[in-house]
């Protein structure tokens, strides 16, 4: 069997049904085999970064491994941003890159790039296939590594002569990686200690991160939180791990998190962290972060624990399994202890409610006839009943989406949290729509971000995907202008720019373009957008002076927020 056919057979064995990519000289044999390959769908993207983000969107929405296939040299380097993005957000992904013939590697051959070297720092692992006989083993290992433990991207570099060489197809039944064995079960002593710390506390807080979603542990989180009635705050990546409509939900935290959440994390006496990374966008200044609390941290990745903030009770294990273990211990606990705990934390709940009343999430209604971006997103949430899969780009609109689109389900909020990659939103939405054909998928984007991968819009048109892009158009890199307003005396250096005519642009790609300019047309605009069956770009012209509040200045303490009325604004 030819290497290229072995490759496709391997993908099928791994349960892959779709891959995103763009061909080139060195992958032509693979593409030739794909031509009449059944059961594998290849989506031609217009840029390799788009291919990788689509694979990410597909993976984030479905929980399956996303697959991208790109050519060597420039194809591989174009894919790097997406690969780094997947690495930061722990997205299970396998990216296959073409490579020049093995005998030419290292000779500065045409379109040669040291893909292994370039991607070493932004992959969980990477491979160069030197011999066609290793093909099945390496593909098998790549998928195993990508989806187990802390998920992440794996790059497999395939030289052209390897995809042309012949070998017998032998599928390895097992994976034998002696240095790799993710921990699944939590240490029972630690589990008991954690439960004891929680039940002994008076101001507990559950702090849920993206790890809970990638481990599909949402149900376990809900069950545990509600059994004990513990307040739940989530990170940007953790949105949807606990439903925004759920009784224990208090909101997202961090730089642009809710006031009550940031106050709660600063004042709690027991912080129960489930799969977050203690990112600096959440902790702010670490020496002042949550000083009164005993910290419990569950994570599959031991390097995440005590990396930024010291943890007193670390539990390494698969999140769902560890919470299950805690639940089992809880079942053995005297019900009186649980009742006493629930009673003890009542004042804490009141305190959080008090904070919320003091500084609720809010924005001023428009007085100048311009649409407030928050209003646009809130309307989208109302009209879609919070049921859409939302992909965002990066900037103010992303933060408003986090604040105002109240997510109820895991895998329904897709965003680039770790790397903060502008250009993620549209291709991720496309990938998600392929994964969930029956779902409403909306991309909330900014005029800066959308231009970074706008070429992928035609992919949505080509495949008749009913993606809706809601463009929060403020004529600028809004997040940059906000910082310039706050910290650089409104000197708008390189943050405002000329815009294309978005409606015409959508038209040119064969999508529908719509525009809203007034607050009173907002709802009708959204309804119109949803009514159209194909892809739509809704250009919402918003007030460019609007800022995201609350805001924790970078490097500041989380409980010292700039609020809407504060003089700085």
């Amino acid at each position, binding site marked *: 069997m030819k290497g290229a056919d072995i490759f496709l057979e391997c993908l099928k064995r791994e349960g892959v049904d779709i891959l995103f990519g763009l061909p080139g000289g060195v992958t032509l044999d693979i593409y030739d085999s794909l031509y009449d390959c059944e059961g594998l769908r290849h989506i031609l993207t217009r840029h390799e970064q788009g291919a990788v983000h689509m694979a990410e969107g597909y993976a984030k929405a479905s929980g399956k491994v996303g697959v991208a296939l790109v050519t060597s040299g420039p194809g591989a380097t174009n894919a790097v941003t997406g690969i780094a993005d997947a690495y930061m957000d722990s997205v299970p992904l396998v990216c296959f890159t073409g490579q020049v013939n093995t005998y030419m590697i290292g000779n500065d051959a045409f379109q040669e790039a040291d893909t*292994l*070297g370039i991607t*070493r*720092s932004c992959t*969980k*692992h990477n491979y*160069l296939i030197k011999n066609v006989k290793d093909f099945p083993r390496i593909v098998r290992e790549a998928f*195993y*590594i990508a989806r187990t433990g802390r998920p992440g991207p794996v790059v497999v570099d395939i030289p052209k002569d390897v995809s042309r060489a012949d070998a017998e197809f032998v599928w390895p*039944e*097992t*994976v*034998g*990686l*002696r*240095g*790799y*064995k993710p921990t699944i079960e939590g240490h029972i002593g630690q589990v008991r200690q954690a439960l004891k710390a929680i039940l002994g506390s008076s101001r507990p807080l559950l702090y849920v991160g993206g790890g809970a979603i990638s481990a599909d542990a949402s149900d376990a989180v809900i069950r545990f939180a509600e059994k004990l009635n513990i307040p739940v705050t989530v990170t940007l990546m953790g949105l949807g791990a606990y439903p925004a409509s759920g009784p224990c939900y208090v909101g997202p935290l961090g730089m642009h998190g809710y006031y009550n959440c940031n106050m709660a994390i600063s004042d709690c006496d027991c912080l129960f962290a489930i799969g977050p990374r203690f990112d600096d966008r959440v902790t702010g200044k670490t020496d002042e972060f949550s000083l009164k609390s005993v910290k419990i941290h569950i994570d599959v*990745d*031991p*390097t995440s624990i*005590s*990396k930024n903030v010291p943890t007193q009770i670390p539990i390494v294990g698969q999140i769902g399994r560890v919470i299950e273990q805690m639940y089992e211990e809880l079942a053995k606990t005297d019900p009186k202890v649980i009742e006493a705990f629930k009673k003890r934390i009542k004042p804490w709940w009141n305190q959080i409610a008090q904070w919320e009343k003091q500084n609720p999430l809010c924005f001023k209604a428009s007085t100048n006839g311009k649409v407030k971006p928050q209003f646009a997103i809130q309307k989208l949430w109302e009209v879609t009943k919070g049921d859409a899969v939302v992909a965002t780009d990066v900037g103010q609109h992303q933060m408003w989406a986090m604040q105002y689109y109240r997510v109820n389900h895991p895998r329904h909020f897709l965003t680039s949290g770790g790397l903060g990659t502008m250009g993620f939103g549209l291709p991720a939405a496309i990938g998600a729509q392929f994964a969930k054909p029956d779902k409403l998928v909306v991309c909330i984007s900014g005029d800066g971000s959308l231009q970074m991968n706008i070429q992928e819009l035609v992919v949505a048109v080509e495949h008749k995907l009913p993606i809706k892009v809601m463009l929060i158009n403020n004529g600028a890199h809004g997040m940059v202008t906000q910082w310039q307003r706050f910290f650089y005396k409104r000197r708008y250096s390189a943050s405002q720019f000329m815009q294309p005519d978005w409606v015409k642009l959508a038209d040119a790609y064969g999508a529908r373009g719509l525009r809203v300019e007034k607050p009173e047309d907002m709802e009708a605009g959204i309804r119109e957008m949803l009514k159209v069956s194909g892809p739509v770009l809704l250009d919402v012209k918003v007030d460019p002076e609007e800022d995201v509040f609350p805001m924790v200045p970078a490097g500041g303490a989380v409980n010292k927020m700039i609020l809407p009325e504060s003089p700085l604004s």
Partner: protein
Amino acid sequence: MKHTISALVENEFGVLARVANMFAARGYNIECLTVAETLDPTVSHMTIVTSGDDKIIEQILKQLNKLINVIKVSDVTETDHVERELVLIKVAAEGDRRAEALRLVEIFRAKVVDVSPDSLMIEITGDENKLRAVIELFKNLGIREIVRTGKVAMQRSQKTKAARKPVEEAA
């Protein structure tokens, strides 16, 4: 504080780069790194000397462990272990100095491995303290050139036998 880390890794191309890259990408310092095949030709042994506070060392150990090709990592600093390094020194050895150099070779149980009319090349093995002392003494005589291998370390007792069972996943 200085730490000596001992690691068993897969003997594959690119593994050294992965290890070195982890240190470089995260801003950790490598003071020295030695690597060679073990009895099992598919496994190499690395000795890495690095420095940092407890928090940094903990991260280094965890991050090393996280690399797919790393089979086992241990910080041998605080354990009962043997450390050795090999040094080659070319010393000036004309006239009286020759006798003095040979006397030092005798005392430290070093070895003369090359002789020329005006210099000697000397091979010495030992731990850090011994080598420091020897080098100081030879400095007085006049060192022309010096090369060091970097440390190798091995834990005493049975503990270095790594668990080498492959991870298996059902098909």
